[in-house]
């Protein structure tokens, strides 16, 4: 019982990380129909920005978090405006190629700017351990991560579902021509979509840096870890990405606890395959998703 509970609780921060990156995939896909393969590297870049602001520039922790998320947001908008916008209306494969190129460019920039060594940031609460019944324990930092991510994802959900921005985004994604005739600036909307998704990724990078340390290889690892969760939940569903993240993280955690570390990827991807065989668009994805 202890192991099961500890595994479940212990995997919640990992699920939160997957969700934050995964929702970025979904938002960009929903808003611009682009599958962004640079999402993990953008997350890592956010972490490195946080490192530079907090450690190199000696900015206190919380202002550093805010600054790095804002910087990520601006980066996302810039990427869209400079690289994606000129290609609007092009085929999906071309846009996917562009995000792959972006992933390589950003990964190389990380190495050039921050070097190969693992970078660490001292974070308040990282070593404060809280104990619960059944011997379950979690650090104060992990609780803060889970609560923060839940709050951010709720805000994303409200923004997309209930706000004018969200309805415009849906309209632009479903029929850009009609949206434009209705006075929606599709281009600005898409830039904002990228900004929001990259801000989320940047926050994920901050969390990853605070809990694990930042290494150049982490970008692809984060992207590849979160992507199956998105596919599991459905590529165009924010709620699906969240649920997919929790399911995947917990399956991986339980596989490690009861079968061993070498089975975590195998079992995770096996479940993903089974779900896709039964429901090719994931658990909550719409049936309009194109086959790439």
């Amino acid at each position, binding site marked *: 019982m202890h192991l099961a509970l500890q595994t479940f609780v212990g995997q919640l921060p990992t699920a939160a990380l997957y969700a934050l990156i995964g929702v970025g995939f979904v938002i960009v896909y929903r808003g611009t129909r682009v599958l962004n393969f640079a999402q993990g590297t953008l997350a890592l870049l956010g972490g490195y920005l946080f490192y530079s602001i907090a450690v190199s520039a000696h900015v206190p922790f919380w202002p550093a978090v805010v600054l790095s998320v804002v910087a990520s947001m601006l980066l996302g908008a810039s990427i869209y405006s400079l690289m994606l916008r000129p290609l609007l209306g092009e085929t999906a494969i071309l846009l996917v190629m562009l995000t792959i*190129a972006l992933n390589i460019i950003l990964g190389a920039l990380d190495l050039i700017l921050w070097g190969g060594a693992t970078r660490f940031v001292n974070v308040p609460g990282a070593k404060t351990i809280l104990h619960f019944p059944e011997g379950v324990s979690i650090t104060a930092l992990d609780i803060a991560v889970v609560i923060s991510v839940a709050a951010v994802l709720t805000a994303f959900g409200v923004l997309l579902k209930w706000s004018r921005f969200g309805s415009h985004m849906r309209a632009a994604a479903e029929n850009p021509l009609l949206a434009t005739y209705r006075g929606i600036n599709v281009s600005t909307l898409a830039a904002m979509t990228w900004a929001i998704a990259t801000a989320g990724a940047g926050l994920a990078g901050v969390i990853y840096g605070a*809990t694990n340390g930042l*290494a150049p290889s982490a970008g692809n690892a984060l992207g590849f870890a979160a992507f199956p969760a998105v596919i599991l939940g459905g590529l165009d569903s924010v709620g699906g990405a969240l649920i997919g993240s929790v399911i995947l993280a917990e399956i991986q955690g339980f596989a490690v606890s009861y079968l061993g570390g070498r089975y975590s*990827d195998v079992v995770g991807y096996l479940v993903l395959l089974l779900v896709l065989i039964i429901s090719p668009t994931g658990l909550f994805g719409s049936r309009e998703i194109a086959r790439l």
Partner: protein
Amino acid sequence: MNIDLRKASPQLGGGGAVRVKRRRALGLTSTGLAVAGLLMAACGSSSSSTGTTSSSAVSGTYVVGSTGDLSGPAAAVGGALRNGYQAYFSYVNDHGGINGHKVKLIALDDGSNPTNGVANTKQLTQIDHVNAELVFLSTVLVAAAPVLEASKTPTISQGITTSLVSPPNPYMFAGDVVIGAEAAPVVNFAATVAGSSPVKVGIMSLQVADNANYVAKTEQLIKAKGWQMVNYQQVPMSATTAAPESTAVAAANPNLVIMALPEPWVISAVQALRQQGFTGPIVNYDGGSAYSTLKTLADPNFYVIRAFPYDVAGQPSPGPEFTKFVAAAKAASDDPNTGFFINGYIQAWVLGHALSQCGYPCSGQKLSTVLSSLNLNTGGLTYGNWSYSSSSHVGIHEIRFWHWDTSLSQPAAVSGLLPIGS
């Protein structure tokens, strides 16, 4: 449905010729990929310490090649090794070179991919005609070994494998301790900190081939001591954290944990173990002995095996060569305590001394002979002499254990010098 937004929407600047737009789009994508390629090249292509021509025979320089991961999953280690090589050869070149000849380093990126490593090695041996090669990963080395052997190119490798040094391949030399050989000192040291019996051991290791040998030997030694192995977890390289594996290990109630985890996994592994109430000693291999690891964890009950000293403030220097190493690192704007930087520096240092004894010009066969009988006082770079022999191509023979001293806020040695076998 594929909507041409700009064609459809005047607001987005539509109405232009589709073909022109496509060509521009393809051009932009090509440019993006080209920039990506250039950046990859900037990270991973050749770098020269002298800027002279590539042929040693023509230019009068020694040419040393290296292949390592500068952009892939192990770039943190590969980059630090390359910086260490570069720092030493820059130092040497600034001080008159070797036998009056400067050294050119050609550092290539293999991205941890053996195919790239073999291609790099062919370029280095057949086109650049290097005097010697420095190789990082064991998987790359194993793949490139036939090329190196055929071209009679002596090679010093961080990731040497047991199969290449036992029996010794004439052109393959270890640039660090062999991971499998760390098992005995780790288990023996663990016995001194494990406390009362029965000792129940949890093992955590990164899922790579070299570590499997270390774990297998550790298991044998644990059994021989009458200890009980209660849990063994392999952490995949794809894992973003080792916390789930720590949960499984902690649940088995060990009173000792032995690890073979480098950064970044070691951080989450140790923190998760402590979070779940494990207070016993943790002993890690030298791959996870970076200064930053000890500092981040600041855990006095976390021990690491180490073949090289740290640059610790307020302590007397271990020796004259170590002082030069610190100066060379600072001249290259590198932190001497960056994980694996010292490894790269020392491997270049050993090669430099072998080239010095070999003379100029220096054939691969002659250099191999020199290396096979090399016996160097490292002046504090290692804990004892660095010596190869015809029967052993492992140069390091002594190690010591370190931990984080919370009162000094820096690493401190917790053992005397201990032998490490080949």
